[in-house]
């Protein structure tokens, strides 16, 4: 997508080696964009180093909300060229793109020069040296703010606010450096030469939020009523936990850092048994460790929410990058016949809805809910319209009332049995992973096993999940069926195809387990071609669809592994080339 066809939609990348401040530049630029009335998205890309090492801030700024990155970049600003090759596949430049480089950083790598892209040399290091307390990345921020047509007053205030803790000297130096970059004549010349439209300042009344996917899941969890969490650190779920920890404390709850994931999920089950809605968050390897106890929570009918932020796997895989390849584990990883729920968040705002819904479902149905997010959502930040949604009313956890003949696992029509909470007199029972009778007494009798399996299945199968099972948009004979963070790319692809005259419908599944075959069949009425889109090498989502759904249409497949997110352009190309 070029600037000419999408006038106020600019993609830019800032790269630098460790300590160069590329990420800070990106974060401030995103905030500045928000302040100037724009929407936007920023992904961070790091090398494997713990501290330092190369980093790239990948941004997309414009007048309309975006939920995925564009196919290519309009501008690359390189603070230096060390390890720049590492980002080559992530930062796709076009012949009409622009590189802004610092002559002090040395020769531009051949790989960049060969692209034939116009290069503007801005002496960022030299300019920074002329300012007390100035740093090249603040020069870069000024350059980019000018490029985007932003106002420099607002930037001055933002810098003052962000750097206030670092002291007046740093604030003044950063502001002066910003101004030096902002007023750099080379940039003004390049802009006017290209006659570039830029977002500039946008005035509107629309309330907007800046949010990462991990924060969205955290907020959804709290809205759903989570008041206890236990977890073990793992990329890319740790920042979700770090967001939750102090907030749970302020809400009167707590987060415990456990010794491992085996402990975290068992702590969650213990706390939930105690009556407190509880969750953990992890990523693939951690989820693998939790599966045994998730079976316990299913058998003992203890509500538990597990947010799994997917990353490249198997094993340590590509821990800082995204993939949609834990679907099979979430669906099928539990031992025995263990009915549970699996939901997938579709975009940043949807992380809030999906996680809140998951908590409410877990509490209501007294079972395990796995929420699938991924690194692409979790660790990117967007500026989006204020997220609004309405969940259907869901009854909370059914708590047992005092009775003389309490049976914890009573066979009810709904399959949901009132749950006694420790502290309640006369209702004492033993929650058990052993198969049990209605009273909870261990039993290996065939009739008890059958009855309890039926009950645990029934409470999920008979529940009315309503309209939130999927997010559907558009109409047409061609449909994209997708899930998770690939949904945003699918929606944008459909929008582009519509503009080109091909109507495309998008069906993004939010509720993955239990499957909703009738609902999908209804949505696919009149659809003759279905393109399944997912970020998995072994086509996990496609095979799941094949196993659970009837799709009376020609099926195409766009399935590939991470680490690069599925782009709208890939989907457009596949549909355009579908003969």
């Amino acid at each position, binding site marked *: 997508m070029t600037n000419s066809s999408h006038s106020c939609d600019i993609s830019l990348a800032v790269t630098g080696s460790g300590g160069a401040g590329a990420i800070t530049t990106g974060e401030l630029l995103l905030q500045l964009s*928000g*302040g100037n009335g724009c929407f936007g998205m920023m992904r961070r890309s790091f090398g494997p180093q713990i501290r330092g090492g190369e980093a790239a801030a990948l941004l997309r700024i414009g007048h309309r909300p975006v939920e995925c990155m564009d196919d290519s970049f309009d501008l690359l600003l390189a603070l230096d060229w060390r390890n720049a090759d590492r980002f080559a596949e992530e930062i796709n430049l076009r012949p009409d793109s622009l590189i802004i480089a610092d002559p002090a950083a040395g020769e531009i790598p051949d790989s960049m020069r060969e692209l034939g892209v116009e290069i503007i040399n801005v002496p960022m290091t030299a300019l920074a040296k002329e300012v007390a307390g100035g740093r090249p990345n603040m020069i870069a921020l000024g350059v980019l703010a000018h490029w985007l047509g932003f106002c420099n007053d607002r930037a001055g205030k933002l810098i003052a606010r962000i750097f206030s803790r670092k002291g007046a000297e740093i604030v003044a130096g950063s502001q002066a450096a910003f101004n030096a970059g902002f007023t750099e004549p080379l940039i003004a010349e390049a802009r006017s030469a290209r006659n570039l439209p830029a977002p500039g300042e946008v005035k509107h009344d629309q309330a*907007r*939020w*800046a*949010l990462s996917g991990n*924060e969205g899941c955290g*907020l959804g969890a*709290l*809205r759903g009523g989570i*008041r*206890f969490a*236990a977890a073990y650190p793992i990329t890319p779920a740790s920042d979700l936990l770090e967001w939750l920890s102090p*907030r*749970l*404390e*302020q*809400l*009167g*709850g*707590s*987060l*415990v850092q456990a*010794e*491992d994931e*085996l*402990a*975290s999920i*068992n*702590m*969650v*089950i*213990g*706390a*939930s*048994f*105690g*009556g*407190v809605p*509880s969750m953990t968050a992890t990523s693939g390897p951690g989820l693998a460790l939790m599966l045994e*106890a998730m*079976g*316990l929570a299913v058998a*003992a009918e203890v509500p538990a929410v597990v947010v799994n932020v997917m990353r490249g796997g198997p094993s340590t895989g590509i821990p800082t990058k995204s993939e949609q390849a834990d679907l099979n584990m979430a669906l099928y990883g539990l031992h025995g016949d263990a009915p549970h729920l699996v939901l997938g968040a579709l975009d940043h705002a949807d992380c809030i809805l999906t996680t809140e819904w998951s908590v409410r479902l877990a509490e209501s149905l007294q079972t395990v809910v796995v929420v699938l997010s991924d690194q692409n959502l979790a660790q990117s930040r967007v*500026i989006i319209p*204020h997220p609004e949604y309405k969940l259907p009313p869901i009854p909370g956890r059914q708590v047992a009332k005092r009775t003389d003949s309490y049976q914890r696992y009573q066979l009810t029509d709904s399959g949901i049995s009132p749950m*006694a*909470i*420790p*502290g*309640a*007199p006369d209702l*004492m*029972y*033993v*929650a*058990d*992973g052993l198969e049990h009778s209605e009273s909870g*007494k*261990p039993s290996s009798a065939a009739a008890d096993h059958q009855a309890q399996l039926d009950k645990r299945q029934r409470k999920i199968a008979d529940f009315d999940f309503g309209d939130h099972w999927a997010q559907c948009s558009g109409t047409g004979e061609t449909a994209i069926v997708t899930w998770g963070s690939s949904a945003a790319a699918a929606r944008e692809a459909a929008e582009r195809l519509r503009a080109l005259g091909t109507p495309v419908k998008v069906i993004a599944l939010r509720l993955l387990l239990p499957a909703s075959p009738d609902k999908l069949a209804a949505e696919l009425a009149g659809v003759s071609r279905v393109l399944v889109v997912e970020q998995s090498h072994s086509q996990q989502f496609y095979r799941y669809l094949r196993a659970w759904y009837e799709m009376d249409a020609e099926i195409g497949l766009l399935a590939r592994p991470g680490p690069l997110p599925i782009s709208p352009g890939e989907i457009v190309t596949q549909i355009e080339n579908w003969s």
Partner: protein
Amino acid sequence: MVQQASTIPIKPKDYKSDIKPVWCPGCGDFAVLNAITKALAFLELPKEDVALISGIGCSSRIAAYTSVYGFHGVHGRALALAAGLKAARQDLTVLVAGGDGDGLSIGGNHFIHACRRNMNLTYIIMDNEVYGMTKGQASPTTAPDWLDSKLTPGGTGIRPFQPAGLALTAGASFIARGFSGDPNGMARMLVEAINHPGFSFIQVLSPCPTFRPEQMDWKHHVRVSEQETTDDPVLAAQRIQADDGMSTGILYQRQIPAFQPGGKPPVAEVADFERAFEV
């Protein structure tokens, strides 16, 4: 949550359920069950305010044999589940019980971290130096030259853990050793353990008549320690290391602030956090 106080039971048998234990005749675990119910009766704890958490194994079946709240979970994770319950519900008295395999092998990591974390829990390991439920394999407390397991026909060749020493090193603040042949002594020990404001660990020598019949001889070797309880970890370590593992009593007790997460009054509402997202 608590509706209204029920009549406080006064007899130990009131803390027992009507489920018949799966244990073999002569199993030491019967005495542990009796000691627990005696201690609870002595402390006059309302049944609804007590939870007994266990894992998997013969001894872990104990949860179903009491009439308090209970959780019979997965193998080795009872301490973690109990920690979550206590974190969420500090008003409850939380007991944890299981065997030497459950607590020291598959659950070994949780054991050392529970000692270190020092939450106000009482943990009972019924130590019979064998896996009974799986029909007689060596555990982490089995002697290296025990030859009766088909799984390790020449013996394990591996030195056993000394549970009390392990607990001390890991930072437990209350360490005791009891014997199933002395249920009254064990009950007194349990009262002290429950009253101890931190993590209390009791290793109970609890013979297995089926797979370790030679343990029926333990009654001739076990002795009540004449030494006073110490709060000095160095002295406690010396005593534990010098001992043959058959001395009973409270070997170590030290007042260390218990870890209790949460429980503070709420100072915010969820909506307060939402404002931070506004652009």
